[in-house]
């Protein structure tokens, strides 16, 4: 199955947040702590992406610790897909 585009990943991220009654801002520079997107939400997003592409995206935690903004999440998942 093919990789998801950045926009598709963003849509899935929006769904993860919506399920918790939160809204994903359109600004890639938005701070994850401020919008309430935590590390387990990142896990959920990664697992949703895996479901879509039919492949596992396993990764270590240190990379995750660098993630601070919405754009970082999208970058990280894009990189994982193409790794």
């Amino acid at each position: 199955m093919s990789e998801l585009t950045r926009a598709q990943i963003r849509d899935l991220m929006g769904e993860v947040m919506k399920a918790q009654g939160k809204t994903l801002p359109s600004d890639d520079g938005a701070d994850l702590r401020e919008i309430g997107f935590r590390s387990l939400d990142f896990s959920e997003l990664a697992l949703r992406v895996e479901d879509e592409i039919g492949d596992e995206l396993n990764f270590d935690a240190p990379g995750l610790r660098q993630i601070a903004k919405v754009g970082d999440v999208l970058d990280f998942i894009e990189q994982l897909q193409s790794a």
Partner: protein
Amino acid sequence: MSEPTLVPPSKVVLVSGGSKGLGLAFVNDLIDAGVKVAAFARTVTPELTALAEKYPDQVHVGSVDVTDEKGAQAFVKEVEAKLGPIDGLVNNAAVGQDSLHVHTSAEQIANIIHTNLTAPLVLTRFVLRRMMAKGLKGRIVNVTSICAQRGYPGLVAYSATKGGMDSATRSMARELGGRVLVNSVAPGFFASDMSAVLGQTQLDQIVRRTPTGHLTEPEEVVPVVRMLLLENTNINGQVLVIDGAASI
């Protein structure tokens, strides 16, 4: 009733993963204590090579992957031929983990379990068979971790292996009937290649929660292992936690 006979201090000690970090600290300390030491790791570091060159009659080193059963057994025989029968074993070699369980592949989990649990049990079995066949007494120290007793995110498979080794320690101590003393040392986090993945925030948090106010240093673990290998203490089947009471 027959007189109980003490288990003598170890004379020839095999340290797995003795090339760097805590393992190398054990090797240095045991050399200083006058013990013959054999050490292996997948990569023999310049530090280990230098020790083998400096103490040719006291130290034997080799490049062995602990998961390679045949290779590890061949190394044990090499050590026996060069230094004499092994009567002390420190199961120190291990791989770390820093990944959430849901994002750790089945292969990675299998590798952690193989390296940290299956391989040391198999190596221990082999060393014990050699000891017992020669009528020797001996001592075993398993280097486990505070993770076996307390929960830490990102360390699920690793913790399972360390808990497994602590459990094996107790059962082995019973099974070996005092002929071989078997104990674990369970350090808290200390600085090494393995813990280098921890972020500064996590390290600061561990220090804040530690009554003694600092991370465990390898130099603080070394004397405990030396005691378990060389002193008469009647400590057997125990897990000695060395973490400044961070986990209490």
